[in-house]
């Protein structure tokens, strides 16, 4: 009985997805309040590279929530690259993505020096916190790991953007995220590094009704639309923090 119902729903969903596939090019509505896309901190290296007409190479380091299954093209890092190309047509943007599934901030910090030697990026976007929250790592230890990691990245000559965990309402009763959000905010403030508040942004979308993040979607469509919006929001955030005014955007 129940599985029958599920089958029906799944069928209906498939049909509607097929129908919606036409409209897929039209980006989802996902406005973000300006305050969440502004940062007091800046990205001088990105700004300098853009001014000098050099390529900007971005390295995204993250856990599995920086990807969607095995489809790198629709995850937010690739969407960020696409959005930046749109907005800054004269700037070359190179992207590499380093997904380290199941690694805590401390684990990742250990790999950073080596990683940076190989890639020499202008900008590192470090998404972290999710694994630590799931394993309830001592928030103090988490904080010092992120702290150490940011210093390592800066010493290697890159600008850094920190990105916090996703807003995940279904697992709210199981994963306690707030201490990790707080600690990331503190580290960002301390090192004057922009923090992309993915958690607050997604929460906002859920409240505005842009996305129903509670729903039990089984397909990848919702994930793709969310990542597309994240990528675009992130591009606005990076352009703002690097003060790439209309001069670079034209």
């Amino acid at each position: 009985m129940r599985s029958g119902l599920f089958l029906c729903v799944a069928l209906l969903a498939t049909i509607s997805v097929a129908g919606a596939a036409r409209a897929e090019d039209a980006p989802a509505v996902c406005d973000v309040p300006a305050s969440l896309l502004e940062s007091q901190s800046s990205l001088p290296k990105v700004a300098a590279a853009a001014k000098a007409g050099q390529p900007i190479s971005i390295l995204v380091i993250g856990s599995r929530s920086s990807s969607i299954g095995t489809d790198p093209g629709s995850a937010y890092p690739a969407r960020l690259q696409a959005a930046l190309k749109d907005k800054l047509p004269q700037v070359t943007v190179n992207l590499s993505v380093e997904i380290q599934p199941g690694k805590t901030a401390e684990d990742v910090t250990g790999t950073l020096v080596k990683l940076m030697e190989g890639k020499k990026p202008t900008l590192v976007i470090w998404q972290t916190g999710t694994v630590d929250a799931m394993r309830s790592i001592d928030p103090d230890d988490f904080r010092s790991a992120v702290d150490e990691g940011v210093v390592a990245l800066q010493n290697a000559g890159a600008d850094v953007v920190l990105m916090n965990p996703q807003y995940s309402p279904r697992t709210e009763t199981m994963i306690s995220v707030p201490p990790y959000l707080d600690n990331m905010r503190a580290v960002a403030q301390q090192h004057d590094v922009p923090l992309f508040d993915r958690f607050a942004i997604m929460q906002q979308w859920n409240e505005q009704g842009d996305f129903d993040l509670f729903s039990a979607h089984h397909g990848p469509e919702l994930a793709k639309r969310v990542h597309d919006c994240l990528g675009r929001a992130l591009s606005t955030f990076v352009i703002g923090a690097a003060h790439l005014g209309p001069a670079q955007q034209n």
Partner: protein
Amino acid sequence: MTSVADRVAGPAVAADASAREKAAAPAVSLPAVGERELRLDLFRGLALWLIYIDHLPPSLLTWFTIRNYGFSDATEIFIFISGYTAAFVYGRAMLEQGFVVATARILRRAWQIYVAHVFLFTIFLAEISYVANHFENPLYSEEMGIMDFLKQPDVTIVQALLLRFRPVNMDVLPLYIVLMLALPLILALMRFKPDLTLALSALLYAVTLEFDLNFSSYPSGYWVFNPLAWQLLFVFGAWCALGGAQRMSRILSSRITLWVCLAYLVAAFYVTLTWYVPQMSHWLPKQLEQWMYPIDKTDLDVLRFAHFLALAAITVRILPRDWPGLKSRWLKPLLLCGSHSLEIFCLGVFLAFAGHFILAEGGGSVALHALVTVCGILIMWGVAWLISWYKHEADKSAPRKGARGNADLAGGG
């Protein structure tokens, strides 16, 4: 906005002189029998409501909870009042019935809390298992990994029984259990050397912070509320109940204390504002930020403790023990909930689970959210009323036992 929510039950300033004389032999003194300290019930009831609201997903109402206006939150109120009332009830038992009987009663109470915790865990397991089986969204494939513990129910359940595996929002009762287990020792010491006991507690707190001591939990990490640190608040509550508040009354009524407390609360409020309006952090000196952060809840940061003290000191000042409003029927729901704290606390945790679940199934609109919050509070009130009514009826039919009972002052049972 800080007004109502910020007031915390504090130690009784104007204590009962007659009681002081009656219990003159040991170093402790107790207020008169039967005189219920309504402020304790009031603020414990308030803490229970706030904990419930804080456990739901954030909404408009969350902005009314005190954690948004300073460092400390409802947990501090709850633990402090628990220490106060536990010492009040079992301290008397220790004087009248001796160490052994009092210890037995305390252990019985700890056992009740333990059973309540396990009961809540069972409900939690049911909810998780449902979500794990019905929810599969590629957006959250990483977060859903948290369900992996369901693959090893044998280990998980045993660890839960050992209080080492605890779901989110189920950390207060284990802390309470550990504190209750330590209570006989605390009371025995405090009976003769209250100030020394408080000093030892502060020493343990300092050592804990210095050497980073904590209880480990399963599968990794540490207790969210470190009992070795939070005991300070509990012992401080006990110390206040056993005469400390009277001895402090000079300090509490001084003007300087008032101004220091007010200044601290305003400063804390400002710092809290910078969390929501990052632009404001420009006026916050960098050195101060570096010294201050992180304001750690696990180890009951000194700043949090101080914030609670400031709140409490101001509250007892503006809200005297005989404030007529305490008898008003508008506060009755809070008083009722506060006087059956264990039951209502557990109910609150359960309702928060249920609320999460309803919001998840129902789409989480603002209206539904408000409805869940209000219904939850009404249910807490209703159940508290029911328990009261039952106790009243049961007491009527039972033979009078004198003033010995009064255990529900310690939060029911």
